[in-house]
């Protein structure tokens, strides 16, 4: 009986080999949300494409048309010189806009403390990505992504500690005007994300300004424990529970996030 379950599972996992890794289902959840966001942006009129780790665009006629997703330990962005087999990104440009953005999965960002923090999904300016790729070994961006999404593909309800951890990461990667004298070794003049471009990526004056100018979302396949929402309003954390395939919560998340991106990143 147990062997029948085991045999059936082996057949499934033998085909869907991504699920052989303990984090495989979580990776699928993250990729699913990324592709949903990409699809939603395209429906809103954006030009969306896939960019390889060497910076080239994946074309319909290419032999290699795989999307390469980061697995294993998180790290920074690989350099173009390291080849095309590293992590892919979704790139996009909104309708009637000259600005270009990239959506990353599982990239580490450096904080003011020097600690590195991974964001499951992050949207950053394309110039940040291209500058990092131009370095032989790539690099770790410093600062705050304009959209940061934490994905929790677990059945247990989210806790206040989970919320605290997300807020702490965002706090550390937020570089404000007032921090400039203390961060000259990182970049001078200071930008909200580095490598960045003033005035496009100018640092904000307060945490509140930075929280509003960016979008921070905690997405869960289950709900949030009672009492978990207490910190969300003050720190502008968008709590999204029960986001599963085809749910109304999923539709609402995509609709709200796309509207915010179209309004703020054009």
């Amino acid at each position: 009986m147990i062997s029948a379950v085991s045999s059936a599972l082996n057949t499934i996992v033998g085909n869907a080999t991504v699920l052989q890794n303990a984090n495989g289902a979580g990776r699928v959840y993250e990729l699913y949300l990324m592709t949903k966001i990409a699809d939603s942006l395209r429906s809103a009129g954006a030009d969306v494409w896939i960019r390889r780790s060497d910076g080239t665009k994946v074309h319909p006629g290419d032999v290699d048309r795989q999307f390469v997703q980061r697995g294993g330990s998180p790290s920074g962005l690989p350099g173009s010189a390291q080849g095309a087999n590293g992590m892919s990104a979704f790139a996009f440009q909104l309708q009637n806009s000259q600005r270009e953005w990239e959506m990353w999965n599982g990239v580490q960002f450096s904080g003011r403390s020097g600690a590195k923090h991974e964001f499951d999904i992050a949207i950053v300016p394309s110039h940040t990505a291209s500058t990092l790729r131009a370095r032989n070994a790539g690099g770790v961006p410093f600062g705050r992504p304009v959209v940061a999404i934490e994905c929790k593909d677990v059945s247990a309800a989210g806790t206040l500690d989970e919320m605290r951890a997300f807020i702490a990461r965002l706090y550390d990667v937020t570089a404000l005007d007032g921090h400039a004298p203390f961060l000259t070794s990182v970049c001078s003049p200071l930008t909200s994300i580095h490598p960045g471009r003033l005035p496009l990526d100018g640092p904000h004056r307060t945490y509140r300004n930075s929280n509003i100018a960016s979008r921070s979302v905690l997405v869960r396949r289950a709900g949030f424990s009672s009492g978990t929402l207490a910190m969300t309003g003050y720190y502008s954390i968008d709590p999204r529970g029960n986001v599963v395939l085809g749910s109304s919560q999923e539709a609402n998340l995509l609709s709200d996030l796309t509207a915010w991106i179209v309004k703020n990143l054009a």
Partner: protein
Amino acid sequence: MVSIELGDQQVETENALSSAHERIRLNEEVRSESENQASKERSTPWTGDEQVALAADIVMTRLKETLLMAEFSIESVSRLIGAETREVTTPSNEGVAVLGDDGEVEASMDEQAVRKALEGMDQLRLAIEEWKSVTLRGSENT
């Protein structure tokens, strides 16, 4: 099966979540005045039979959802790249590849692999139903 060990947890309501979304949308800075904050997460333990049924349900539901999400992602990647225009003379790499710690491809999936995995779900459902039935019968007899 962390959620099974935690039991039935008391969670925030959809109304509370909707209010939170609206505050974010309107950029309202709100200090929480609710008494229901920073509380210890409350839960009611599952009984043994409930744990068995829940375990069976979680395996089936999550696995199927994950495979369907993988299927959508692969289709979406294909859509974003666009229709194949080259003359097919060599097999192409399609779908999704996941890197391991060493930066090399650890696993990959394409549409065909996910379809086969989904076909295996019927066999898994039967096997799990049988396991659940025997396990629950066993607990009745003790």
